[in-house]
């Protein structure tokens, strides 16, 4: 499914040539549309968007932002460090319940009697949720990160299942009924509790999202980020080059957890009622699909993946199924089936199709797509000096597999061309 096969290569190339040859203020249009400039354009669009959209779409946008946040957090674990975390929802739950417990101020004792506890403002609980999720990330990660990657996948999956069960079975948290959370307190004239105006909350999530984007970008380019990528590409070589595997993985795992906790806190304040049944394996997988769809390890890719899936989920699926219900055949089908099932089926297909045909995702991460092509393809951009040293150290051990890996890369050949 390359661009050539789709007949798009020609038009795309000429469009790009036009962009590169048209200059404004000494820079080509292409320059303005790439890198951080593009991020800035998107940010400007995001800032003016709420004044153009109706409130339903603003609400959809908030949930897109929250999921983009979660996807960026999971991307630290899966995309950078190459660890498969299938229970990311656990940190989302911890963050959500932190805010619900802290703002609600009421729990249950073992005999179902109400138990009043002091309440705290959301602004204090948001960092607390991040810290708590991070602590649980360390507690889970410390024993399990010594294991091979695929064991980690199963242990995290189990953790993701246990955490909601614990909140459901312990007497304090109202079991299946779940809990209510309060929206954040007003800041000056800005009020977050108006159900008819979601715009303040939109900007709150946007600000948090931008901060997280800046943080993960800085992390990726730090020495820690290069150590993560080294571990992802070849654990043995990274260890030989002096990377402390367990500590480095633990940092990835707990930082991913921190972001998950923040996402959970925002989510609880946004939806205001949470129940254990809202949190399941489907959410962990949905976030993983966002990453695989957008591009494992790629920050813009992951955000795009979150936006596409969330838009599909919240807006398109609702609107389309409502409109189609006018057609009798569709209505009878929908009456007997849950539209959610069809959605999850499509998610499964997306996962398989992407991983088979375009494993680097819609917006590939440069280094990651080289990795998918095998190390045989010589790196052009060797600015990451630390990594280069690691690659040299590992070259003897990975050399034998390089020849085979190029065969896998065949399908992804258009990525390099597009990035130039």
């Amino acid at each position: 499914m390359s661009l050539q096969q789709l007949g798009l290569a020609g038009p795309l190339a000429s469009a790009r040539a036009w962009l590169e040859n048209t200059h404004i203020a000494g820079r080509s249009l292409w320059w303005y549309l790439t890198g951080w400039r593009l991020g800035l354009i998107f940010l400007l669009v995001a800032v003016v968007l709420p004044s153009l959209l109706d409130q339903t779409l603003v609400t959809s946008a908030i949930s897109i932002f929250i999921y983009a946040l979660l996807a960026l957090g999971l991307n630290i674990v899966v995309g950078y460090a190459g660890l498969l975390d299938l229970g990311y929802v656990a940190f989302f739950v911890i963050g959500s319940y932190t805010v619900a417990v802290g703002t609600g101020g009421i729990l249950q004792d073992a005999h179902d009697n109400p138990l009043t506890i002091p309440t705290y403002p959301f602004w204090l609980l948001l960092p607390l949720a991040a810290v708590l999720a991070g602590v649980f990330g360390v507690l889970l990660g410390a024993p399990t990160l010594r294991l091979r990657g695929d064991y980690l996948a199963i242990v995290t999956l189990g953790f993701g299942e246990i955490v909601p069960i614990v909140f459901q079975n312990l007497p304090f948290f109202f079991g299946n009924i779940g809990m209510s959370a309060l929206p954040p307190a007003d800041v000056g004239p800005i009020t977050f509790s108006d159900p008819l105006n979601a715009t303040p909350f939109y900007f709150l999530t946007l600000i948090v999202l931008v901060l997280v984007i800046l943080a993960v970008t800085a992390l990726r380019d730090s020495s820690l980020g290069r150590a993560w990528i080294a571990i992802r590409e070849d654990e043995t070589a990274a260890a030989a080059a002096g990377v402390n595997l367990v500590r480095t993985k633990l940092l990835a795992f707990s930082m991913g957890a921190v972001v998950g906790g923040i996402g959970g806190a925002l989510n609880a304040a946004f939806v205001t009622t949470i129940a254990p049944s809202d949190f399941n394996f489907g959410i962990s997988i949905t976030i993983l699909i966002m990453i695989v769809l957008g591009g494992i390890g790629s920050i813009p890719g992951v955000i795009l993946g979150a936006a596409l899936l969330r838009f599909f989920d919240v807006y398109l699926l609702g609107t389309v199924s409502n409109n189609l219900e006018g057609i009798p055949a569709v209505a009878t089908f929908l009456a007997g089936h849950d539209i959610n099932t069809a959605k999850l089926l499509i998610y499964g297909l997306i996962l398989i199709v992407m991983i088979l045909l375009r494993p680097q995702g819609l917006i590939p991460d440069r280094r990651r797509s080289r990795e998918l092509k095998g190390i045989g393809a010589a790196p052009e951009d060797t600015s990451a000096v630390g990594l280069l040293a690691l690659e040299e150290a590992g070259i003897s051990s990975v050399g034998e597999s390089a020849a085979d890996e190029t065969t896998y890369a065949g399908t992804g050949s258009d990525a390099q061309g597009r990035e130039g």
Partner: protein
Amino acid sequence: MSLFHLRGEGMLTLATLAAGQPNNIFLQQIENGITLGAVYALVALGYTLVYGIIELINFAHGDVFMWSTVVTLAVVQAMGLNAPLSGLALVGILALLIVIGMVVSAVLNVSIERFAYRPLRKAPRLAPLIAAIGASFILENVAELWRGAGFVSFPTIFPLGGYHLFGVQINYLDIFIVIIAVALMYGLNLFIRRTKMGKAMRATAQDPEAAALMGVNINRTISTTFVIGGALAGAAGVIYNMYIGEVWFFTGFQLGLIAFTAAVLGGIGNIYGAVLGGFVIGLVQALAIQFFPGGNGIAWSDATVFAILVIILVVRPSGLLGQQVPDKV
């Protein structure tokens, strides 16, 4: 779609059965655990065989098992069976169901290998695992579209009743389940030890490249492994249907995780380990349901299994019977 606490519905029969007995509850739960463990062991074998040969957690394996339960239910419904059978009809129908279940699961498992895993054999480790999750989602949701989101009850076709020994009710069905499971395991053992293909499987598990150099057809060997793993899961699906009596599209996810835990407990890659792990997990779960502190055993039974998984992986990742193998570079 809240998942794990619903599992209790099927398990409830186990607990109430035991609670209703005036006799030895502890021994009764041991008996229940052995029967349940036989099912877990059959499914765990599929995980361990595949992991042993290509080092992949076949995430879709539980759903391959589930498809056997769904298809055999459809067969039973199409034949209009809704009462316990006897004599030749019983033998014939059981044989038919087990064959159908085994074929369905084997075909599904080997097709997934062919289309989702084989193209990714040289890809980074995460890739086939993600493909497996995708396959699992597809299998689950197609089953849900077909049979709906709820539980569908599987008619009682096996004769009721049994023996009462030492304060323990041993149903005919339980005996049948254990006999079928043990026979299949024995057959698998013979196949792996005595046949040429079994030898090829062992060789491929040890070193695929060297095996290929010795003339082993790697693709065929891996496909055979998936066929065998699928067939065992298919047989497990049929006996699970008769034992639990409820069919649900999500059964495979839960049972798959439990069976995977069993495989890890025994030492993944080791077929004796998978059998041992299956029985141990079955026993632990049956006892946890009855004796969990605080009395809410059903709600906590899955959490107990996962806690065991985490503890084994931390304390002895190679499992009870596994060997500590260093990572291949």
